[in-house]
């Protein structure tokens, strides 16, 4: 099925798919890069953002309010999670952190299932972004085009906050030597809480922005979490720009392989990840030795 129109279409689809993966992965990598905690509840938080947005949409009928609600709700959930559980795990081994976040993820999924059941829920795109657009070489869902723009803006915003503000500076200093930052009179504890909140908010934002593309089910975070990890590993663990690059590469791998043989597209993603791990273990944009 390799024809010129299909190749161009798949390259474009890979870009759109990759943008989504990049957005979802960014929250994961922000939390890991700054706090050193691998958040296995990230998939569940992504799902929860979708459901929070769904509830807001059902109540108000406004997509903008749904996006705000999904993001803010997850920011609150993130801060609560950090204060009640995660902060006691900063000094504990990675295995403990993985287990506790995995457990929180299961709880979130089952709570949502209890409240909403297993039948899927849908959030329609805003009316101005519904329908299909012609790109000349192909037709593409208008909302997916809009999503690429939304994601670009959101990622830029996140980048500016974390890498061009005083907060970002403190965060990065905190990772290098938190005792010294503490000694300088800066409340590292509080900064970590904010970062976890921001990471969770990014997951929630991705969840509700992605909601009109998929239909919501309690388990939707599971499959996406796996792909997200692949993205982060390819891009470089803890690297924000790496998440974006990894997302785009993964999107293209999934799309272009499907053209040759669709049943191999998932396999190919892991093959490339393995290759990256062998040739450049720290990931494409990762820094060696950073944990």
């Amino acid at each position, binding site marked *: *099925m390799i*024809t010129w*129109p*299909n190749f161009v*279409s*798949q390259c474009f*689809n*890979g870009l*759109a*798919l990759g943008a*989504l993966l990049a957005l979802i992965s960014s929250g994961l990598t922000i939390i890991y890069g700054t706090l050193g905690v691998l958040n296995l509840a990230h998939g569940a938080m992504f799902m929860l953002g979708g459901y929070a947005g769904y509830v807001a949409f059902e109540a108000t009928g406004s997509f903008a309010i749904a996006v705000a609600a999904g993001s803010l709700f997850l920011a609150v959930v993130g801060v609560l999670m950090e204060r009640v559980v995660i902060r006691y795990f900063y000094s504990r081994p990675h295995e403990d952190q993985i287990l506790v976040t995995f457990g929180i993820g*299961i709880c979130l*999924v*089952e709570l949502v*299932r209890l409240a909403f*059941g*297993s*039948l*899927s829920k*849908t959030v329609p795109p805003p009316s101005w972004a519904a329908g*299909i657009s012609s790109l000349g070489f*192909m*037709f*593409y*869902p208008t*909302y*997916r085009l809009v999503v690429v723009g939304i994601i670009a803006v959101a990622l830029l915003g996140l980048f500016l906050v974390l890498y061009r503000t005083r907060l970002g500076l403190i965060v990065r200093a905190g990772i290098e030597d938190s005792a010294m930052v503490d000694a300088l009179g800066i409340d590292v504890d509080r900064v970590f809480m904010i970062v976890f909140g921001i990471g969770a908010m990014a997951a929630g934002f991705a969840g509700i922005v992605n909601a009109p*593309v*998929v*239909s919501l*089910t*309690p*388990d*939707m975070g*599971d*499959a*996406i979490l796996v*792909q997200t990890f692949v993205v982060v590993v390819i891009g470089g663990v803890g690297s924000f720009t790496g998440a974006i690059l990894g997302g785009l590469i993964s999107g293209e791998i*999934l*799309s272009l392989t*499907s*053209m040759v*043989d*669709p*049943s191999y*597209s*998932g396999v190919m993603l892991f093959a490339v990840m393995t290759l990256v791990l062998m040739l450049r273990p720290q990931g494409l944009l990762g820094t060696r030795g950073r944990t």
Partner: protein
Amino acid sequence: MKSFDRISPSRRRVLTAAGALVASASLPRFSIAAEDRPPIGTWPAGSEGSSVFIGISVPRTGTYAAQGEDELKGYQLAVEHINSGDPLIKAISPKTKTGVLGKKVEVGVADSQANPNTAVQEQSRFITENKAVLITGSTSSAVAVALNKLAQREKVLYVTGITGSNDTTGKDCVRYSFRQDFYGQTAAAAIGPVLIKTFGKSRKAAFMTPDYTYGHTVTKSVNDYLTENGGWTMVTNQVSPLGAPDFSSYLTNIANSGAEILINVNWGHDAVLSTQQAKQFGILPKMKLVIPYQTPFLAKEVGAETTEGVYAATDFWWTLEDKYPLAKMFVEKFQKKYGYRPEWGAENAYMQFAMWADAVEHAGSFYPPDVIKSYEAGRKIPSFVGEVYWRAADHQLVRPVVIVRGKAPKAMRNPEDFWEITEVLPGAPLMQAPDAFGCQLGSYT
């Protein structure tokens, strides 16, 4: 993510102990029985008390969760009816009074996650710890095939849940397993003529196929039929993993394939998501959608405007109540208890338990070879779709295939009135010979 509804194991232990006591008191008689009938599987241990245990494993999480819950409700209603001697059960299994051979039926429920390994693990536990006399459940043919093998190895009866693969009662058939829903091949033979009649000859079709035994066998059967009888061409076959989070790359290929008809073999939430996204990409309604093996709740989840005019083959749809009195009783009782009209997963589950009760009552014993021979006798059994019977050579139920067409939203008489029944086709003429897929049942003992 596992849940167990264990029913008072301590009480069972007491009962087993009591059973053992009685057994030792009447030792001479038992030793004679043991001579011509050595213990097999969980017999006689599983049926010595006043109750018998059934292990149920359905997916309660993952891609098939919604369908698994529907299936589970069918099992639970059947058990309630068996234990109380409900008129509906008695209509299907006339010898039933209360319970099965007077013994109360108890169940344990486990989440299979539609994963063969998990299902085998959970059912092995029900067999060894609870001495299950029957195991059931599957909402994936991969699970059904794995449990077939477990059942034959452990010599414990297995009645399948939802499974459409040709392998289940074909190349992977076993003596200890029985399937109620039809072969993918039968679905293809039923819906094929309808498609050729509706859409004409020499059409170009794109397939979407989940990457496991159900998907591959159903796609092959449907494609073979359409190619041979209608001169159709498969222009692309998009194979995707179970639980794919996004179908955009597969759909981009389909959009560029020049297909006129989209045949979606995906199932569960995969069917929902792929159909919704096909609509987002404008593939629907430009191409005509066909669903060879209908997914419970699909129309409800994607909306009637998407399923309008769509043809599907299915086991059961609730409006069959207009034609069959037993279907009417079932729909009414189910709706009263659960608040919605049953989908075919629930119907399939209920009938499997009812027919098992019938087989055991006729055998007069829980001794597995006797129960199997009772199934194989080929009695005519009243069901929700008229009279049905078991085919002894492959343990496949011979039953009608129901062809439905999606109703327009404005034609719906109530919020669950999604499908119009266009045909109820007798099963026997649609079915291939029992050994066509290489079925060899294996031994009774």
